[in-house]
Structures are given as structure tokens and as C-alpha cells.
């Protein structure tokens, strides 16, 4: 190869290599310092998000208080089971149905507790998205959380429905006509039924909270989709 051709190849390589290397280094350096730009939400939207976050915080506090109430009810049910199953329990022939009923109530309590925990988790994730929207977390990250919430929702729904069904079965399982029960079995029946009705009302409100959250997640998704996309990362000078 004549020496002039070698020189030309070298010049050609340099002419492409220098801008190419420079561009690569510039882009690599940029990619290390990328700070996700904040979505430009209006003042009204920010204020609404703040209010929503406040409401969600309130929901979390009350749901956590409910959880501790459930734990106490479970302890009470466990106490009743121990008492009824004792040999010297004064309930006579009514002891066996009361015991099986108390055991059903205890099982429902455990299910209710896990449903409640799932809903609390759901609310916390919603709060995370709301906070992220407000603080300008990257849209793709928020969408990941929203997708997780959407995937999580049918499982929560199923758990709530199972608990609801089980609570209804327990209501049928009570069977015994309380009027026929003699004291102290009647008082015991009253204690257990109050525990059971608490569970019934809690599971129905839990179902409502969950369905509200599903619509809320849907609204959040629309809001995240509507927020301006990030298109500032690559901008050439001219």
C-alpha cells in the first residue's frame, strides 16, 4: 500500500473517531448526571394532591388502628375458645357448637387481618404515587408502582371476597337459636356474636375502601399519563 493511502486512512479514521469518541464521552457523562425533571403540574393539581395525600395518611392511621383492634378481638376470641374448651366450662351440651363457632370466628379474624394488611399496603402504595407526582418523581417510576397496584388489586379483591364468604358461612354456622340457650351459654353467645358482627361490618367497609382505591388508582394512572412527558434530555443546539 503506498504511504499516502495509509495517511488518508489515518486522517479518515481520526475525522470520524474524534467526533465519535467525543460524542460518546459527552453522552456517557450526561447519562451519569441525569436528574429527572419535575413534571410541571399546576398549582391546583399540586394542592389537590396534597389534600389527597392528607386523606390517605388519615386512612392509613385509621386502618392501622383497626388492625390493632382486630388483634385485640382475636386475643378475646382466643380467650373465649380456651374458656369454652375447658373441661369445667358450665355450658353443657351447648359447649360444643359454641366452641366450633368461636373457632370459626377466630379463623375469620385471621383472614380479616390479612385482608386489612393488604388494603393498608395498597393505600401506602397509593400515597407513594401521590407523593411522587407531587415531588416530581420520573413518570416511568410512578407507572411501575401503578402497574404493581393494578396487579395487586385482583388478589386483594379475592382475599376480601373469600373473607366475606367465610364470614357469611360463619353467620350460618351459628345455627343455634339463642332463645333456646340457657344462661350462661346465652351470654357467651352474645359475646361471640358481637365479635362476629364486628367482623362483618369491618369486612364490608374493607370491600368499599378497596373498590374506592381501585378507582383512585385508575384516576392516578390517567393523571400520570396526562402529565407532560420528559423531552428535555436530548436537545441539539440549532
Amino acid at each position, binding site marked *: 500500500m503506498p504511504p499516502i493511502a495509509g495517511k488518508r486512512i489515518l486522517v479518515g479514521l481520526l475525522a470520524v473517531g474524534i*467526533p465519535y469518541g467525543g*460524542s460518546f464521552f459527552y453522552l456517557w457523562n450526561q447519562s451519569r448526571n441525569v436528574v429527572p425533571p419535575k413534571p410541571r403540574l399546576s398549582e391546583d393539581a399540586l394542592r389537590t394532591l396534597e389534600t389527597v395525600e392528607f386523606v390517605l395518611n388519615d386512612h392509613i392511621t385509621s386502618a392501622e388502628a383497626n388492625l390493632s383492634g382486630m388483634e385485640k378481638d382475636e386475643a378475646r376470641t382466643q380467650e373465649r375458645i380456651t374458656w369454652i374448651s375447658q373441661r369445667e366450662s358450665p355450658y353443657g351440651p351447648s359447649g360444643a357448637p359454641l366452641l366450633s363457632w368461636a373457632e370459626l370466628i377466630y379463623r375469620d379474624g385471621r383472614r380479616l387481618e390479612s385482608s386489612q394488611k393488604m388494603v393498608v399496603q395498597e393505600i401506602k402504595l397509593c400515597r407513594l404515587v401521590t407523593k411522587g407526582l407531587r415531588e416530581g418523581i420520573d413518570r416511568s417510576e410512578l407507572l411501575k408502582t401503578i402497574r404493581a397496584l393494578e396487579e395487586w388489586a385482583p388478589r386483594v379483591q379475592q382475599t376480601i371476597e373469600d373473607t366475606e364468604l367465610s364470614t357469611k358461612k360463619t353467620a350460618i354456622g351459628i345455627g343455634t337459636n339463642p332463645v333456646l340457650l340457657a344462661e350462661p351459654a346465652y351470654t357467651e353467645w352474645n359475646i361471640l356474636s358481637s365479635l362476629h358482627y364486628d367482623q362483618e361490618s369491618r369486612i364490608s367497609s374493607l370491600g368499599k375502601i378497596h373498590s374506592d382505591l381501585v378507582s383512585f388508582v385508575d384516576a392516578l394512572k390517567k393523571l400520570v399519563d396526562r402529565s407532560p412527558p420528559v423531552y428535555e*434530555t436530548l436537545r441539539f443546539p440549532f
Partner: protein
Amino acid sequence: MAFAFILTSAFVLIELRLIPETVTGSSTRAIKKDELIFTYWILILLFVAFLHAGCRLLSGRATLRATFTASLRIYAFLVPGTTLLMIFLSQLVASAISTYWLVIPPLGVVGFKPFVPTTGNLLIVAGFVTAYFYLALFFLMCTVWALHATHKLSYLRTCLAAAASIGALLLVKPFVIGAGRRLYEVFEPLITPFLGGL
């Protein structure tokens, strides 16, 4: 020049149709294509005016009319050509790295979605930037040649005038875009049917 204007606008309109609305969401609707094309053509005219002023300051001898004739004669070929090439390259690169870019004539590129900075993606985009660099250089060289021939200035002075004009254009660009929008609002009834027919 009018033919170049129509051709370039047509390229941009086709390009805007190539970007799926589902990916860019509301931003595609937010882009007023007519306004965008109008503003960039105003910027080109302003750039030529700056070039003329720069050359005259450095003892250039051509009239404003001569500068406009020489520059716009070159740009009539360069602007549609570079726009088409940039659109082609950006579509190629954007599809390789799964993102969407918008080319704004003559040499503007806006990324809609930040690309994932993997080594492969950086290598591809660096290739695009290199091609962009040479296109911009060619654009500049053509401008310098045209000015050199019209104003009878040395290459050094012509380059200085071109560099000063680019600097001035970058400085006033935000104001020009704002003013362009306002002007567009005034002339919208005239511009929209013209561009809408494309």
C-alpha cells in the same frame, strides 16, 4: 425558496405523523406544527440578517439583497436536504434505541423520551451525533462559502462573522420563538390553510 419551504414543511408534517400519539401522549397534540415551521423559518431569515450584519461589520461589500439571495439560494437546497436526511437518521436511530425523536428544520432534534443509557444505546446515539456534527459542519461550510463569494471577505473573517451570527442567534432564540408565536397568532388565518393543504 418557496418550493423549499413547502418541501421542508411537508417533510416535518410526514415526520409528525410517523410519531405515534400513544407514545408521546398529549405532547403531540401540544405541538402546533404550523407554528413550529413558521418560527423556524423566521429563525433562518434572522440568521441570514445576522450574517449580513456580521460581514458588513468585518468590511464585507455585498448588499443585504445580495446576502439574502446567496444564502437563501443555498438554503433552498440545504434545508430540505438536511431535514430529510436528519429525519431518516433520527428514525433509524430512534427505532434502534426504542425512543422517538422530532427533527425541526434545519438541524434541530428533540428527543421525546429519554433513552436508556446502556453502552449499546450510547454507541448508536454517538454515531448519530457524529453524523449530525458533519451535517452541521457542511451546513456551516456552505454558508461560509456563500458569504465568502458574496462579500469578498477572507475565510477567517467570514468564519468569524458566521460564528458571531450563530452566537447572536442562540442568544436571541428564546425571544424570537416567543415573538414568532405572537406573529403566528396574527397570521394564523393565512398560514393554516396554506400548511393544512400539505
